[in-house]
């Protein structure tokens, strides 16, 4: 077990290193640099050159990379060239919580909607309930989040005025207000996810219900709810958890769009703007954080998976 953990840790580190190099090179490949943005229309060759030098952007890419790594591992994540703000503050204090709340919100939303409807569809297999449910599921699974967002804003935000159209309020400060502001974004982001989960839940429950051990349980006199919720559900959850985990990455994809459309100050929007502004420090750090989050998610999914599935519990 220990040795396994160690191995895994090593892999993770190699992975992070690879990513950092990858992104660094790509960003350096990209034409233009932050100084161009900083000067904007006030550009003139002298201040350009001097500013570049001051920011150490005129050094060789390798040196720049090494400097970055050295500082990064020592916890000095650098600052925004343009605003002078510290990356750690922008990223961890301002942006990260937003994205976490958003993802959490949509995940909760998705699970609440998806799993019951998936079960219902499976039990009422090949009835109109099934068709309607799965129809909706695939519909939401196919709705581009940015377009869904726009529609929701204009229908429920502007026209009906039921929900706020944009902005973020930290739920930590004011829970109801925070949640109220997260409803439309969570729906936008969660819909796609809910569709997916509902479909897996259904198909996997259908499979499990055909399993022999379910018949055996029947033969033992188990019936009705107990059959589904006790004997089937655990087995259904195994694939569901796996996919849920695998797709959290896809969730972040949606997060970029959702944050852009709803003007949420989250990681997705941060990194997008950072890339466009060539905020090297910010991009590196954000990508690292996203990767680490991704790895942590996979880890927890593994743990959960092991808990649910005794067959892989050894090791």
């Amino acid at each position, binding site marked *: 077990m220990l040795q396994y953990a160690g191995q895994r840790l090593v892999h993770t580190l190699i992975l992070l290193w690879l990513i950092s190099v990858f992104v660094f090179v790509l960003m350096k490949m990209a034409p233009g640099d932050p100084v161009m943005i900083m000067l*904007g*229309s*006030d550009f003139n060759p002298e*201040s350009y050159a001097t500013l570049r030098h*001051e920011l150490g952007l005129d050094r060789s890419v390798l040196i720049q990379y090494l400097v970055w790594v050295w500082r990064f591992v020592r916890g000095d994540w650098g600052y925004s060239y343009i605003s*002078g703000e510290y990356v750690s503050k922008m990223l961890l204090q301002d*942006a990260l919580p*937003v994205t976490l709340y958003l993802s959490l919100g949509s995940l909760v939303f998705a699970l609440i909607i998806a799993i019951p409807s998936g079960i219902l569809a499976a039990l009422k297999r090949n009835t109109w309930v099934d068709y309607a449910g799965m129809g909706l599921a695939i519909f939401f699974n196919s709705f581009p989040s940015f377009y869904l967002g726009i529609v929701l804003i204009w229908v429920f935000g502007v026209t009906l005025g039921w929900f706020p159209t*944009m902005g973020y309020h930290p739920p930590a400060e004011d829970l109801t207000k925070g949640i109220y502001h997260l409803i439309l974004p969570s729906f936008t982001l969660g819909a796609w996810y809910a569709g997916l989960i509902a479909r897996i839940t259904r198909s996997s429950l259908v499979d499990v219900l055909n399993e022999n051990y379910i018949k055996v349980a029947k033969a033992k006199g188990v019936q009705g709810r107990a059959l589904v919720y006790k004997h089937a559900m655990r087995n259904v959850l195994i694939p569901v958890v796996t996919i849920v985990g695998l797709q959290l990455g896809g969730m972040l994809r949606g997060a970029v769009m959702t944050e852009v459309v709803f003007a949420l*100050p989250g990681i997705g929007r941060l990194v997008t703007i950072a890339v466009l502004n060539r905020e090297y420090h910010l991009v590196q750090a954000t990508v690292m954080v996203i990767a680490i989050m991704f790895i942590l998610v996979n880890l927890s999914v593994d743990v959960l998976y092991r808990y649910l599935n005794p067959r892989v519990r050894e090791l």
Partner: protein
Amino acid sequence: MGRNEHEHKAKLAETIRGDLVTRRAFLKGTAVLGAAVAAGRAGLLAPREVLAQQKAKRGGQIRVAWIDTVDTLDPHFTSSLGAIKVHDNIYNGILKVDYDGKRVSFVPDLAEKWEMPDPVTHILTLRKGVKFHNGDDFTAEDIKWNQERLKDPQVKSPHGWKLAYLDKVEILDKHKVKIVFTKPYQFLPVAWTGSTGRAGTIVNRKAVEKQGRAYGRNPVGTGPFKLVEWVENDRIVLERNPQYWEKGADGKPLPYLDKVTILLIREESTAVGALLAGEIDGMDLVPFQFLPLLEKNPAVNVVGGVEGNYTYIGLNNRKPPFDDTPMRQAVAFAIDRKPIIEQAYFGGAIQACSAISPPMADFYNLDQCSSKRAQYFDLEKAKAFRAQSKYKDEVEVEWMVVGGYTGSGGVGPRMAELVQPMLAKIGIKVRIQLFEQATWHKKRNTGDFQLYDEGWVADLDPDETIYPEWVTGKPWNFVGYTNPEFDKLVGEAQFEADVKKRKALYDKADLTLALDAPCAFIAHFKVFKALSKKVQGFKYLPADSMRFHAVWRA
């Protein structure tokens, strides 16, 4: 600087006429939008009516969406209008822009009195009892230090050049300072304004020295509001500065508002949605395509007018095919500005036939377009020029458009899309190529392009609108235009104190520029702000500013 009344009236009339023309054409073009635009337009030509004064109310807060991006709150380093609009509320300048609804003027701000014993010497008598947000007193020392900070090559302020002719700053006493220049630099008044000038904005020395690079996020000024927090991509919160020196209508110190929350929403449609849903009280910029929508809305005031700007299509004078003058002239005359104003600016602009724009009242020629002296649309003329070009057969060129998620309130690629077919008519095949901002800036700044569109905004003096842009080798002359005669004219104009003479110089220069056609001038566009009707006391300035000094919430 005295000018007689009727001349302004005439100027305004021309502005309106240009406006009416475009509106009529616009109506023809797009029934739905046109009507709406027409409805709203009347209002915004007389901004003051829109904001009929009532009894000012103290307290409360407003939430305003910013479409423009904010880079830094250090005015000596900013290069974004979005930031300057914030500075206006945190800082004061030596001078400030004033607008009586007809003409722009520059009046003392932190300076109480501004005397000029001779053309190069300025004696400023400063206001007493002005305090910085951190409690420091504002004194002559601060003027000296700020001016020197800007000029100091070590500091590398991109605005240093505005004080290129600064000779020395002498402190006469705690509240009196003498600033001597080597030349009678006519652009100075603008440069010294707190807003777009940026060279007159006074920052707090202690704070700058303490914060270093982080000052841009921890500004300390003398303005009516102080910064509370700046959450990345989310909001900038300003709070009332209780010890602000300016007095309100009720004799008590300004500002009326306790708090101003600036929401950093780049996503235009989202901001508009929020405004219509009543979640926010205003927008710093109304994207043209939303004009009709907002102007129709009874709860919203749209404020704005033609400002000191011009947009143009830059033609790279160094690269074929536009290294050939007739070719450039062909382009200048082949472009029909009307559809562009309808389709790209949705009526929110007037034609530009040369660089100098209406708000530069002393220099703008009312008949600039009608006289057909400068650039205008004439396909035959264009074809004639094209025929003279050394490039006989069809040429294919790349038009560099800034794209990407920049949230800019501009017209984006629309202009290029509209001009593409027009140039096809004179055998120029345009390939539109998007570049996100960093790349675009690099290519522009290094002259690595054939054709691109750009605009200079919030200019108040012909010098800033022409000199750095078109004089040989100047930083913003990206197309590499060079004409010694032109350089000479604008060079003289910089130091010509007599307005009449100065105008004569600029008339000549402006015309030369238009006919050399280093670029094709397109429009002087209007800059609109949308404010909820609840927001009272907002004073419109044709310098793209959002000053909340005297604003209150009804």
